[in-house]
Every structure is written in C-alpha cells, then in structure tokens.
C-alpha cells in the first residue's frame, strides 16, 4: 500500500465515522456481530432505509463488508483493515514525546 493510498484509507475512515449514525451502526456490528439492515433497524432508533443508505457508504469505504446473499438478507460485518490504517495515523498523533523529554530536562538539571 503506497503512502498516498494509506492517506486515502485514513481519510475515508475518518469521514465515514464522523457521522454519529454511522458510528452507531459500526459499533453495533462490532459488538453484536454480522447483521442485516433489518436486524439493525430493529435494534437502533433508525429507519431501515437510512441504515441501508449508511451501510452502502460504509461498504464503499470498506469499513463493512457485505456477505454474499439475497438482497434483503445480506448481512454486513465489520472489516478491521481500514481501522488499522486509521489507528496507525492516530498512534503518531497520540505519541507523547514532549512529556518525557521535559522530565528528562528537569531530571538532568
């Protein structure tokens, strides 16, 4: 995966998850396992139509994968690969060198 592709993947993950409804859908799939749009509509306070629309977008970003099956019975599951790319991005932001280095300076002094 080239650097620019990783950027594109991270971009898609952050864009897809910036929406609270899509976060809720991904969280439901992550905690409850694969589910159809109908299953999710029964569990979440969101219409089946809205869920289907969000699932399409999440599938385009490859955050969820549609399992093979008849249209209305298609189950979606979480795909962790793009999250791992986004995690890599966050890891760089979360690395705190400033705290320890300030302590180093203090200890030496």
């Amino acid at each position: 995966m080239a650097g620019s592709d990783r950027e594109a993947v991270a971009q898609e993950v952050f864009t897809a998850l910036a929406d609270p409804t899509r976060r809720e859908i991904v969280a439901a799939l992550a905690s409850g396992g694969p589910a159809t749009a109908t299953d999710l509509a029964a569990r979440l306070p969101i219409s089946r139509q809205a869920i289907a629309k969000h699932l399409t977008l999440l599938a385009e970003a490859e955050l969820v994968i549609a399992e093979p099956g008849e249209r209305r019975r298609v189950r979606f599951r979480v795909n962790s690969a793009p999250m791992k790319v986004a995690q890599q991005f966050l890891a760089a932001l979360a690395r705190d060198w400033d705290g320890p280095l300030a302590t180093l300076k203090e200890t030496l002094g």
Partner: protein
Amino acid sequence: MAFPDRIERTLDLAQPPERVWAALTTAEGLGTWFGNSAEVDLRVGGRITLAWTSGDTATLTIERLEPPAVLGYTWAIYGLPQDDPRRTYVEFTLAPAGAGTTLTVVESGFAQLPEDDHKKAFDGNTGGWTNELGELVAYLDGRL
C-alpha cells in the same frame, strides 16, 4: 492530509553527552524520566523494558548503540494491540554543543510497511522476522 510518519524533537541540554547518555541507557536514568522503572540489557539486539506504575510496559529492542552519540531501538506502535507486529524505529542522537548537548529524537515508521509484508514476516519463523526488522531499520536509516 499528510499521513504522519515521523516525529522529531530537538532538545538543548546543559549537560555533556556522557551524562545525557547515562540518562538514556541506564536503568536508573530510564526509570526516572521515561518509565517508572527500567531493566536494561545494553547491547545491540539487547532489550530495554520500561514499566509504568499504571501497569503499562514497553519493550525496546536495541538496534544501534554508539556511545555516547547514537541509541536506536524499535518498539511496538503505541496504541496498537500488543501482538501487532508493526514497530516504529526511535533514534536518539547526541551532539556536543559547547559544554552541553543537543539531543535529537526521531521516531519514524508510523506509515511504514504494507500490511501484507508484516503478515508475511509475522507468519514466517522468528529468524525471518528478525531479518525483516533488520531490513526495516536499514530502510528507515536510508541504508537500503
């Protein structure tokens, strides 16, 4: 949006390189400013284990050791699961500056290798993985 691959900090210290080197390479030093305690096996290929009172630990594998000028190590990427094979490379460089030291720390490799390469290395034997890591360091060093 740029994918951040590299973090760099430069610190001007009043102490000479030898004192800074001790802070970076002894259990006493590392257990004071970096972790809350440390164990140090100071040789290339040796390990440094840092522990914090929070219960967190970090294992550093020493890749470059040129006292009192260069300390390089790899460690797991912060925030990723323990068993994730991806590692970043950290290099401390100490340069005399008058009576003191200019300390540079560079951590690189956040955006390093494709998943597939890691998988290959991880699925192979331990020796293979060690070789991969050596190559990673050489690559990050600009030697490959």
